[in-house]
């Protein structure tokens, strides 16, 4: 399988300060840095500002776990790093040439580029106008990043969901620039989850424009209560004095699963039948369970009278994608469920990333036929993102 083409649908940037200093429009630079700013260069403690106040940083020590992994690194090697020492982040997290070199080393043909900071913090920005300005800055920076190799780097835009109207403006702008994907975090934006009726126009425009809606959760470990699951997880876990965050292992799946369930109860899959929806960075093995639970409780809740009660059929018949992680052997073992809809992601450059050969080995271990492996590693994503 060494010549297998690979599409990486879970690949992240770690946003540089250039977004604020060079890409944010001059009129917004002061207010933008006050609304949201993050600086991490690996040699000094990170700086995080949110809504004019200090915010929790993603790293509590010298290891930036959101940008530490490089091709060839094993979990054991990362585990041996000294947290008290400052460790440089992977240049490929910010520099496209370094990124392409890493992709070559990882055997990756093309990659979807997802945010890190603009996922974890961005939904919490309160001022919608500044959120839009920061979205423009991020999207323009990412566009230039991807321009280094447009056939290999696929940018996914962020949208200022703080205001559905402004999200529509930004959607139109990035569509004109040629973006084929937009990221929406399954989190509460000013108290509204993305299934809220106020966002119907955004979903309708995504459908009309043929732009893939990428549902991308974040761990949410730095976020306040009631915005996503991560804050709850960290709050209760702290009693055990673990020494490191734990939300990353469960919160992304929970937030994504909640949105898929909310989509079902609100009838999104029927109302936007051509909408391309990708659930990324939250794992895939939960999908059958969550669809089955929706089905059970929709049948049992007779007050819901206008949505399909057989969500599995609906989900698999529509343009949908779900990203899976290297360790998710369930994807290999349940090919009739996943072979047509799942797509592998590396999680680059986060600490739990892996190269494609590890995923290929996992699929081989469970005797996944070459045709199905090619779908899971390449074709499903390529067909989805066109």
């Amino acid at each position: 399988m060494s010549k297998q083409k690979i599409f990486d649908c879970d690949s992240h940037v770690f946003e540089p300060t250039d977004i604020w200093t060079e890409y944010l429009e001059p009129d917004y630079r002061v207010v933008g840095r006050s609304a949201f700013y993050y600086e991490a260069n690996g040699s000094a403690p990170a700086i995080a500002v949110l809504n004019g106040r200090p915010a929790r940083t993603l790293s509590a020590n010298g290891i930036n776990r959101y940008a530490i992994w490089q091709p060839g690194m094993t979990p054991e090697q990362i585990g041996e790093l000294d947290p008290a020492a400052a460790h440089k982040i992977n240049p490929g997290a910010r520099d496209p040439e370094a990124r392409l070199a890493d992709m070559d080393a990882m055997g990756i043909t093309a990659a979807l580029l997802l945010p890190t900071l603009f996922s974890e913090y961005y939904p919490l920005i309160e001022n919608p106008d500044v959120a839009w300005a920061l979205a423009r800055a991020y999207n323009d920076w990412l566009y230039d990043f991807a321009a280094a190799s447009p056939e290999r780097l696929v940018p996914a835009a962020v949208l200022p969901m703080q205001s559905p109207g402004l999200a529509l403006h930004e959607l139109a702008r990035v569509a004109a620039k040629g973006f084929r994907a937009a990221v929406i975090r399954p989190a509460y934006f000013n108290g509204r989850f993305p299934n809220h009726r106020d966002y119907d126009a955004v979903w309708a425009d995504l459908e009309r424009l043929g732009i893939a809606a990428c549902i991308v959760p974040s761990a949410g470990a730095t976020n306040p209560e009631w915005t996503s699951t991560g804050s709850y997880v960290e709050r209760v876990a702290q009693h055990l004095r673990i020494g490191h965050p734990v939300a990353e292992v469960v919160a992304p799946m929970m937030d994504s699963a909640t949105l898929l369930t909310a989509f079902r109860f609100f009838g999104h899959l029927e109302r936007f039948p051509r909408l391309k929806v990708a659930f990324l960075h939250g794992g895939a093995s939960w999908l059958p369970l969550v669809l089955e639970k929706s089905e059970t409780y929709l049948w049992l809740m007779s007050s819901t009278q206008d949505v399909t009660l057989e969500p599995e059929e609906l989900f698999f018949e529509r343009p949908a994608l779900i990203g899976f992680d290297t360790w998710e052997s369930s994807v290999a073992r349940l090919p009739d469920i996943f072979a047509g809809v799942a797509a592998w992601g590396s999680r680059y450059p986060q600490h739990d990333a892996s190269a494609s050969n590890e995923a290929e080995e996992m699929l081989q271990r469970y005797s996944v036929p070459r045709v199905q492996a090619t779908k899971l590693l390449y074709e499903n994503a390529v067909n989805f993102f066109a």
Partner: protein
Amino acid sequence: MTGNGQARLTKTFPVFDCDAHVNDPLEIWSNYVEPEYVEAVKGAYWRDGKQAILNGRTAVLSGASTDFPSYNPICIAGPGMNKKIMRRFQQIPLSPEQKKYLEHQGAYDPAARLRDMDLMGIDQVLVIPTMLVANFPYIESTEGALGLARAYNNWAADFCSHAPQRLFPAGWLPLQSADYTVQELERIAAKGFRVALIRPIDARGKYPNQIFPSVTGGTIRNTMDKVYRCFEETGIVVGMHTFPAVACEPSATAASPGELISRAGDMHVGGRMVDPQTLSFVFEAMIWVAHILLSGFLDIYPRLRMAIFESNSSWIPSLLDHCDRLFKLYRNERRIRSDRLPSEAFYQQCFIAFESDESPTFRQWDRFENIGIWSSDAYHHDGADSWSAIVEMNDAGVPVEVQAKLLGGNARRAYGIDGKVFVTEQAAPVERPDWWPNAAEMEQFVAAQAYPRANGAQPLDVTQLDPRILLEMLRTM
């Protein structure tokens, strides 16, 4: 033959149902609360024939049939029932007689319970309360919590004494006080209880992982540490039992992660719900399992045995594999050093309940062979019998000897219970009254309901409806 002309299923091994429910009956309060605790329990969580009151001030769901406009969903699933028939019954006005027929008396009557177990292919069962799981964690009074836990446990012991080889009680604990919990654990251990239940939520800011002293957590020695050590010493299995998120009283922070599911709906403005029952069970369990595995909790209590109830199971393989990876990645940041991988700890000390329709679990049965424990969840509305599990397992190619472990052997090993077969053959279909929908009616109903838009239904924005319609509907049901 069964109703659809197929041969009746048979089995040769004993089935142990590790998670089936009673509907906490009024007699717990009227007959089992000891006199010295009555006043405290009245101020904690009290039920009478009309209502249930939490902390002396908040009316909460009690589980009584009068709480629900249609049938009682706590007592509805049983022999021959399924979600499609239940939906049918939600859409027709039910007479008091019909509601009574649909309520399985086995939810509080042991003789009726045994009859239903025979029909459902269940030889032995662990019985678990219902609304206590929802409401009890929010009780503020430690004395009231102790009095009610004692009352429930005494009632459950009496309920199970009708058939001690088939009915096994799970104890409920007054976690409001670690000392009272230890006292009650020791008391129920002496009475022969094999399991005691804990709900993994943060009610009253007391998530049940608080084993270390904290500056705001009370006395230094009065932590959950003594509770888990008592579990180890008594040999009682910790039963982590989850529930749908129901915020009994207002709180600035979430008690259950399921509350975030509810907020995705807009019922608060008269709109559509996103039912927290869908995933609240799963989320409560996932968070508990993930952080105890990553913390080294099971290394602190190496003799502890834990069963994860009512949370489905197919998520476990992926979670364990991800935890193993993070365990290696955080080697130098973990404060409790251990070389035992999270998956190893789980397989050595834990069990996880699965339900009859979990096909992904059956297809990966090698990951569950020694830790999977079957549950019917009867009589709750998503419950099912063991025969349907056997059908699914046969379809998935699960060897019969593994089926025997998954459907009973593992649970009995966990609890130290001898297996005994009481049921060997699937029963004939239950004879139903005239008003029961026949097969043709159900086929038509299901086709119309499953795809409402294909059948002409229009999207409905319930926030725009006159709210009096809802009132009228509730008044007439």
